């Protein structure tokens, strides 16, 4: 516990306490909540958002934003499933899916960074374009995974030793890697600097464009990994997948203290943000609260948590 606390900075500590409170409340109010099985379920479920949120945070920290990730989720699962169905090879599908993700990241990045169109606009446009393309390609019908290979099924549904979801393990590994990269490598620090004050970073001789481009690629790449896990969980390339996903990710990440203005925030914080929202959603579901009330509660919690945090830190975005 002490070790965990040491790693949490001030703001994150406050969030972590909120998380604990939520956790304890649910543990007392639902008999199913604090069971190994449920905890493991949640950890698998949240990995989809977590992985995308890591990439999203990296990009936010670098001072840019990508709101096309929800559409991207649906889009990159097309090559994944199609290639798997055609070639019968899961790795080939995965590789192609990731390549598509990288390409979209490059396009987003190129348009934003090299052509100088604000990334919000580029990716808002991309949100429409990718979703439209998915509808057009699929004729608004999901493409099923016809291969039905166990390997692919296990990515999103399987559990290591029957207990720990593989998805959770993938999420955790990615999280740890990127926490390290952002904190302790010059690359990570440069991303912070670029997002914190682009002009200063430029005068320090950074290749701003390349750095930002790389952040776009990371964001799309990680979202593509989310897409793979999601596709495995829903056994298809689904045209409705990822609808409003970008909002879920934004909410979690900002709740976790990553600033929309760039240069501020940590992946630990972002992860706690994801944790809080996922646990709330799970707990409310187990308590049989109507989805409608869940929306209300979620909204109120976001306001309270972010507001509380703001008041405490008195930071402004």
């Amino acid at each position, binding site marked *: 516990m002490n070790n965990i606390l040491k790693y949490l900075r001030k703001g994150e500590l406050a969030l972590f306490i909120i998380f604990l409170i939520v956790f304890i409340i649910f543990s007392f109010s639902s008999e199913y909540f604090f069971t190994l099985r449920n905890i493991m379920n949640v950890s698998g479920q949240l990995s989809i958002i977590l992985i995308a949120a890591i990439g999203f945070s990296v990009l936010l920290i670098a001072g840019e934003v990508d709101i096309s990730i929800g559409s991207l989720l649906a889009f990159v699962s097309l090559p994944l499933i199609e290639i798997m169905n055609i070639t019968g090879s899961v790795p080939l599908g995965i590789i192609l899916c990731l390549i598509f993700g990288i390409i979209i990241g490059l396009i987003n990045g190129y348009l934003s960074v090299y052509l100088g169109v604000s990334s919000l606009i580029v990716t808002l446009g991309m949100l429409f374009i990718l979703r439209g393309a998915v509808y057009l390609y699929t004729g608004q019908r999901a493409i099923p995974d016809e291969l039905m290979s166990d390997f692919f099924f296990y990515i999103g549904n399987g559990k290591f030793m029957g207990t720990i979801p593989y998805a959770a393990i993938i999420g955790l590994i990615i999280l740890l890697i990127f926490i390290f990269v952002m904190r302790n490598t010059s690359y990570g620090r440069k991303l912070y600097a670029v997002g914190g*004050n682009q002009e200063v970073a430029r005068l320090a001789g950074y290749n701003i464009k390349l750095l930002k481009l790389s952040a776009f690629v990371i964001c799309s790449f990680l979202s593509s990994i989310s897409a793979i896990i999601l596709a495995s969980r829903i056994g298809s390339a689904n045209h409705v997948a990822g609808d409003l996903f970008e909002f879920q990710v934004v909410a979690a990440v900002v709740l976790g203290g990553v600033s929309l203005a760039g240069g501020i925030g940590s992946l630990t914080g972002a992860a706690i943000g994801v944790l809080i929202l996922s646990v709330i959603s799970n707990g409310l579901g187990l308590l049989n609260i109507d989805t409608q009330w869940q929306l209300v509660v979620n909204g109120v919690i976001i306001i309270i948590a972010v507001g509380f945090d703001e008041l405490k830190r008195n930071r402004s975005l």
Partner: protein
Amino acid sequence: MVNINFKELNIESVSKSFPGVQALDNVSMKISAGKVHALMGENGAGKSTLIKILAGAYSKDTGNILFDQNKLNIRNPNDSLNYGIKVVYQEISLISEFSVAENIFLDNFPTNSLGVMNWNKLYKDTEELFNRVGFNLNPKSKISDLSISQQQMVEIARAVFKNASVVIMDEPTSSLTPNEIEKLFTVIKNLKQNNIAILYVTHKIDEIFKIADEVTVLRDGQHISNKLISETNEELIIKDMVGRTVNATFERPKDILSAKTVMKVEKISSKNKIKNVSFDLHEGEILGFFGLMGAGRTELAKAVFGYDKITEGQIEVNNNIYKSFNTSTMVNNGIGYITEDRKGEGIVKDMNLRENMSLPSLKIFEDLFIINRKREKKAADEYIKKFSVKTPSSERLITLLSGGNQQKVLVSRWLIRELKIIILDEPTRGVDIGAKTEVLSLINDLAKQGLSVLLMTSEMNDLLSLSDRILVMADGKISKEFYRGKVTQEEIFKASVN
């Protein structure tokens, strides 16, 4: 590439134009290694532009830059850094979320071959650097927790820390206290001994006689003169700069303290370190404030102006007593405020000069609900002329003006309207000597007409020559009160270190 041995940095016929402005017009100069070369000129003369070209931030239109006879190929900041050209910029250029150490090593983080940061080395090297140059800062503190002057010290430390062949300082002392300025001069002497060429830009003429070896003056983007320091004097330089002489002593009325009280600050405290501060301000009085860095002058100004909430005490203006108020309350009571942080809190970057000027006073330009743009423009033009703001028109975006000219606009912002009290926090920072005299004498004139002034400036001479009273602050409290003519610099300093 680094540590090139050279005798002179040669700038040959460099020109640069921006739409509507010829910022540099065939400027040539030589900066010798081991010498301090001062660069002077009015606001907008082109000093910062020249520096940015050397730094690779702007590209020049024509001309050459050479180390002796070797042409430098500066396409971007990276090239410039590789040549060892290090710049302390006029506006603070730091990552405010980073630690001091990270900022110092921003362009060259200590890492292993995999790019993993070596934090220990980072902090240790920073510590050593500070010890060497005599700055006293914690390498781990966050920039946003530091005062402007502390930040300026970080900037300076960053520029000189290693591999420098040319160090360029654009008004480095504009936000330093005398004590820190001394330290900076020691650093500069140190650099000279290491055979580094130094280009030093300042508006404070006395400084160049302390450290510079030669001085070049620019006017309107053109090279006017170049003299060894031993062959020139203050008057000559000012004449080169402005084309005339300026006079900078001020007469103040004698009986000002018997005038009626316009503002009564009673025992106010704020979260931002102000503790139990009280003072009166009389009609037409210029009340000076002095304090060392972090003494709390800015915080006091912000508390009085309603920017920071006061937690205790009250303020009486216009016979109204306020315990809780915001900036619009104060503006409506005829109070104005000029910030020390021009870029961060002063200019509105999406607006042009006219809109920046009229922002707090739009009401007076209104016909019914509609702004009368003609009147607004006329008022703006009037102040552009009065302070000789260097701009093609009042419709120019404020960000395209030079730093000093922006400051003039911000001063005009408040003079355009009827004011009872003005709070000036470093109002002449970065303003050239000609305009500075104009600003100060305007303040003096306005005070004579009944405007009351709270003047916070680190320029001791201005403070002494203008203030009717001087309050010295230390640690968020007022430590001593002095009266005009009955105080010396030494006494003020003594009170401020209390």
